[in-house]
């Protein structure tokens, strides 16, 4: 029997505890509701382990410093909400092209603009995918509980380190602000992945050269003696800017392919009540909890409804969603926006599958009854 600590913890706090367990030693950000507790806990906890917390002058600088921390060799994180997520987008693109691992937490609140600062939303789902310009790889995870927030924050760091890419933790105000029971795993239960580094003293180190059998180029830290250049311009194997179309094509395809060729390693989901399901409710984040309650009630009423939890939001778990709807006749997607993720579902399912969107944007959670009513309307 493992000796796990059991406590009541807030989602935002669990994010910080997970980040620390994953090896985070640097946080830079600009506090914004409803993510502020993440900055607060980092400010309290990081100095105790010799890490660094910096409150920057604005959201843009918070993202820039996070990239800088990672380039200096530290596992780095920042947290924000919708308005700040918008501001961070340009630097997120920089991290994607320069292949700088880092974790960006977006505790979603109702927008657009400053919207409803204290109210939940899932309105940034498409911004996570398309917020920064140009083709770029995206990994985004969405937790549904305090424990999952802890676990997925660790996972975000591991994916960021493994694939040398920014990774999003798409929290929402529901999960970020609620407190519930969590059993903290013991250190030996936690898997941590660290970035691959070049061999010390490698005189021929080229910062962006991928050798046969390597997933990404080994990443040196500034200050360890390696000379290299980092830029948001297309670049050659040394990291120096290049206008060469062949180099640009090869670089961006490699960066896209490192994710798209490994979708099965990245995509996570869970299913319940699926065996005989005629209808599937697909949900993520805080809304999943309403969906689970609704599906359980529907089952008690004899309705054949299954439940799909998208843990990995991006890449979209399209293979599995397509399989599911080969059996189920309809799929319901409740989300705290006017129909964003449902577009992905529509994209991948066959024409004879009925896709139903249940959106809400008034700053309140979708209730189980609202989902149940929709289920009953269709079945």
């Amino acid at each position, binding site marked *: 029997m493992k000796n796990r600590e059991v406590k009541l913890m807030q989602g935002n706090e669990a994010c910080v505890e997970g980040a620390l367990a994953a090896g985070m030693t640097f946080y830079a950000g600009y506090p914004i509701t409803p993510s502020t507790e993440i900055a607060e806990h980092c400010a309290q906890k990081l100095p105790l382990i010799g890490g660094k917390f910096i409150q920057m002058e604005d959201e843009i600088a918070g993202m820039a410093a996070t990239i800088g921390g990672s380039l200096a060799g530290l596992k780095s994180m920042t947290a924000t909400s919708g308005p700040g997520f918008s501001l961070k987008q340009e630097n997120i693109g920089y991290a994607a092209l320069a292949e700088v691992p880092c974790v960006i937490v977006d505790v979603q609140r109702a927008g657009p603009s400053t919207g409803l600062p204290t109210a939940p939303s899932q309105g940034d789902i498409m911004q996570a995918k398309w917020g920064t310009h140009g083709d770029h790889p995206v990994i985004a995870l969405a937790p549904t509980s305090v424990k999952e927030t802890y676990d997925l924050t660790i996972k975000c760091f591991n994916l960021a380190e493994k694939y040398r890419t920014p990774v999003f933790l798409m929290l929402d105000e*529901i999960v970020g602000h609620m407190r*519930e029971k969590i059993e903290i795993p013991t250190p030996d239960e936690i898997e941590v992945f660290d970035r691959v580094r070049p061999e010390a003293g490698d005189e021929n180190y080229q910062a962006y050269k991928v050798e046969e059998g390597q997933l990404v180029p080994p990443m040196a830290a500034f200050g360890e003696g390696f000379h290299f250049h980092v830029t948001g311009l297309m670049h050659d194997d040394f990291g120096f800017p290049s206008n060469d179309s062949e180099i640009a094509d090869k670089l961006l395809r490699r960066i896209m392919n490192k994710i798209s060729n490994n979708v099965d390693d990245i995509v996570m989901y869970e299913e319940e009540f699926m065996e005989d399901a005629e209808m599937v409710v697909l949900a993520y984040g805080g809304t999943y909890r309403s969906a689970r309650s609704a599906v359980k009630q529907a089952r008690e009423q004899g309705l054949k409804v299954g439940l799909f939890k998208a843990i990995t939001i991006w890449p979209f778990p399209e293979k599995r969603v397509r399989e599911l709807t080969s059996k189920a006749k309809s799929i319901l997607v409740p989300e705290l926006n006017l129909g964003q993720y449902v577009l992905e579902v529509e994209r991948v399912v066959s024409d004879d599958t009925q896709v139903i969107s249940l959106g809400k944007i008034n700053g309140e959670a979708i209730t*189980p009854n609202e989902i149940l009513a929709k289920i009953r309307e269709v079945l």
Partner: protein
Amino acid sequence: MNKQHEIRLSGSGGQGLILGGIILAEAALIDGNNAIQSQSYGPEARGGASKAEVIISTEEIDYPKVDKADLLLALTEVAYVKYIKSLKEGGILIVDENVNVEGINPSYRVVQIPIINTATEKIGKSMVANIIALGAIQELSNVVTKEALEKAVLKRVPRGTEELNKAALQAGYELVSK
């Protein structure tokens, strides 16, 4: 204890209702049950109507929000007016003596007690009103045990105020049992 209890603590910002909710949820965990604490608040830090919600259950809790509460605590008239409609038919209302509850739904069990006055006059600290209220909630509903509640209170309050808070809890029990 029945399967699931939904409790809403309301009053004005600064009365320690969120801390009260956290303590109640932690007491439930000490008892070996599940609990979720959530809150909703406006941008203001003090004043206004503030509330904290706690769900305590012997089962897994899916939906974390409280819609219709089984028990409502209202420390101020503003909070009472705002949240009384969210109390379930037949629910329990614990309300401060200063609140006018005229014309209230007769299905409610109304427990009107001097929470604020006991804090300021008997204990001598207005800030323990939340702890007195927790004592009253425990005595009335048994959603948590007295042992767990005391442990949870002592874990959360500042060092040096243990006796004060124990006295506040006791005063809360007595306001109801008397």
